[in-house]
């Protein structure tokens, strides 16, 4: 059957599934809207968290990025999984025990202050908006690549679907669609991966094929190191970044993960404290399936790419080469006019430009898989983008209707009124996200790191201290959060956007990239919070009692 038909069928079926789930899981109360009624099974919540967490970038781009950066790509693998250990051990069970709806809820109550609550709402909104714009863009890109509609139409279709199930179902609708989306995306990711692993190494498990041998009995990684050396790239299994920077980036991503409101809020949806721990474990297990496969795909496709193109005549390229050339993901310019493709690290002689996204997207064609696998990949990429967008949307709408409206502006608002406000806020947020998806501000890519840095430097320290110390008070927490956020913003604006005099790599403080600076800003937050606390009075007895209480199982 024609590829386009397959794609419409896969996307159509998966979308009807999401809509069906949304109709079945209408939210009738604010508790259902914000935390799915608080009765989600830990395994279901683990799947939903995994889908929520793995965005279009994880699905489409990550393997490609690792493929080009080798060992340096490990920062994403460790950074985006290790945070779940922090969540399971340090945050999730206690926030569940606390038992409210949002992260600003916890910060506002624990630090008995609406100022602290406002700072938390402000941070939650910034973090979530920077993230969601990228997701809607991802939806548009996937639509335009696979379905041959333009990006604007793609974004509008995506908006329509998310709007439907997020506004009707709230967290309840989102949770159960995310469970379905996880199944779609992991199946779509694994089928080509298993196939390619078998093709190249004869091993059905990509994680093992990764360390396996090729048809000539040479270890794949050794071969790739050799090829890289020949072409002038740095060795695949060792890095080009400084060890200190790798350390800081990994730490910032881990702590940022643990501080992201749309991840934390997922743990409010389970029944009891022990379920919060369990679902963090399941979430990481489900995420690990994709995250341990991605570096294997990276190696398979990198080896395959180099062997297929390097010093081979352009006219002998397989058919997919030309196809991806027309999409702009591959580019060949015969600089020395010898008809051969020179692929090298030296930009003066290199003749091939490769976009990182191609490593996952072109996989089925490179491995000669049937059309339905390509269709599956399209549905998987859409599932990844939509599920993350929906999770973020909920954080934005609850920050507005619950934290701002109910807790600060109109404390007497009725349950019904709050539910209407939540739906309106969700609608507004979808429209805004869609606008940014259609007209992406140039800073989208640069600000993903900002979202992690901000979460690491604002939320993580004050939530952690709020649980593990009874002494930390509002003066400490507010000044710590403010110092953390503004230090992080300053560094990002200076080195990513050239504000405050700008600066180059040589000017980085202690050689830390903006991506890794969240680690420093987080330590500054800890330091300020603890210092200011030690100079101001301890919190009231009730607050100490509250802390005592969330520590009990």
């Amino acid at each position, binding site marked *: 059957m024609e590829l386009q038909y397959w794609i419409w069928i896969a996307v159509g079926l998966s979308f009807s599934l999401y809509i069906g789930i949304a109709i079945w899981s209408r939210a009738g109360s604010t508790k259902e809207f914000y935390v799915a009624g608080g009765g989600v099974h830990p395994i279901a919540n683990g799947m939903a968290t995994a889908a929520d967490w793995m965005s279009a970038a994880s699905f489409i781009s990550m393997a490609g990025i*690792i493929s080009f950066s080798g*060992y340096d*790509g*490990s920062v994403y*693998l*460790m950074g985006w*999984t*290790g945070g*779940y*250990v*922090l969540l*399971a*051990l*340090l945050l999730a*069970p206690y926030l569940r025990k606390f038992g409210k709806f949002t992260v600003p809820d916890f910060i506002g109550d624990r630090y008995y202050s609406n100022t602290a609550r406002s700072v938390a709402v402000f941070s939650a909104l910034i973090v979530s908006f920077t993230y969601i714009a990228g997701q809607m863009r991802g939806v548009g890109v996937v639509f335009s690549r696979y379905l041959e509609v333009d990006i604007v139409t793609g974004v509008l279709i995506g908006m329509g679907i998310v709007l439907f199930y997020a506004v009707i179902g709230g967290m309840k609708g989102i949770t159960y669609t995310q469970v379905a989306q996880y199944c779609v995306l992991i199946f779509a990711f694994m089928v080509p991966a298993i196939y390619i692993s078998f093709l190249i190494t004869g091993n059905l498990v990509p*994680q093992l094929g*990764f*360390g*396996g*041998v090729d048809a000539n009995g040479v*270890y*794949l*990684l*050794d071969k790739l190191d050799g090829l890289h050396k020949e072409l002038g790239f740095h060795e695949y*299994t*060792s890095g080009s970044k400084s*060890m200190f920077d*790798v*350390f800081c980036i*990994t*730490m910032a991503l*881990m702590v940022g993960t643990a501080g992201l409101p749309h991840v934390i809020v997922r743990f409010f949806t389970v029944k009891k404290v*022990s379920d919060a*721990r*369990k679902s*963090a*474990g399941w979430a*990481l*297990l489900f995420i*690990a399936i994709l*995250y*341990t496969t991605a*570096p294997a795909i990276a190696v398979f496709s990198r080896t395959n790419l180099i062997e297929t193109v390097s010093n081979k005549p352009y006219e002998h390229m397989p058919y997919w080469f030309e196809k991806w050339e027309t999409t702009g993901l591959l580019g060949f310019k015969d600089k020395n006019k010898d008809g051969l493709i020179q692929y090298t690290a030296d930009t003066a002689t290199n003749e091939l430009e490769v976009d990182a996204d191609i490593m996952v997207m072109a996989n089925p064609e490179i491995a000669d898989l049937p059309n339905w696998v390509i269709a599956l990949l399209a549905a998987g990429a859409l599932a990844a983008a939509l599920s993350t967008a929906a999770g973020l949307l909920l954080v934005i709408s609850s920050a507005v209707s619950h934290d701002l409206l109910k807790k600060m502006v109109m404390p007497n608002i009725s349950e019904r009124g709050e539910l209407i406000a939540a739906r309106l806020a969700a609608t507004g947020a979808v429209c805004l996200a869609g606008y940014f998806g259609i007209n992406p501000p140039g800073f989208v890519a640069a600000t993903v790191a900002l979202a992690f840095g901000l979460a690491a430097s604002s939320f993580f320290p004050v939530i952690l201290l709020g649980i593990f110390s009874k002494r930390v008070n509002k003066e400490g927490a507010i000044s710590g959060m403010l110092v953390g956020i503004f230090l992080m913003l300053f560094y990002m604006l200076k080195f990513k956007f050239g504000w405050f005099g700008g600066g180059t790599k040589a000017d980085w403080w202690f050689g830390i990239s903006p991506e890794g600076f969240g680690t420093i800003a987080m330590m500054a937050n800890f330091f300020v919070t603890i210092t200011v606390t030690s100079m101001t009075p301890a919190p009231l007895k009730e607050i100490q009692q509250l802390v*005592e209480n969330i*520590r*009990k*199982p």
Partner: protein
Amino acid sequence: MSTSTHKNNAYWKKNIQYISILLSLWFTVSFGCGILFVEQLNSIQIGGFKLGFWFAQQGSIYGFVIIIFTYIYLMNRLDNKLNKDN
């Protein structure tokens, strides 16, 4: 101090102890083996993998999963004990 407060304090202390041990493992498999000592470990090759590289791209993630499930097991046991005592 009542006995129930006493038990809760003991519970919390045990919890902190578990967390400290497991977090040091968390640090070791990722920052230790995958970053700080990656070069030393890379001199050891197991199958097709240099060990340090393997920790950075595979082993650390398996480690994280094991750490969380260990914590789930330990805390469930501790919770049951506390419930029985009360």
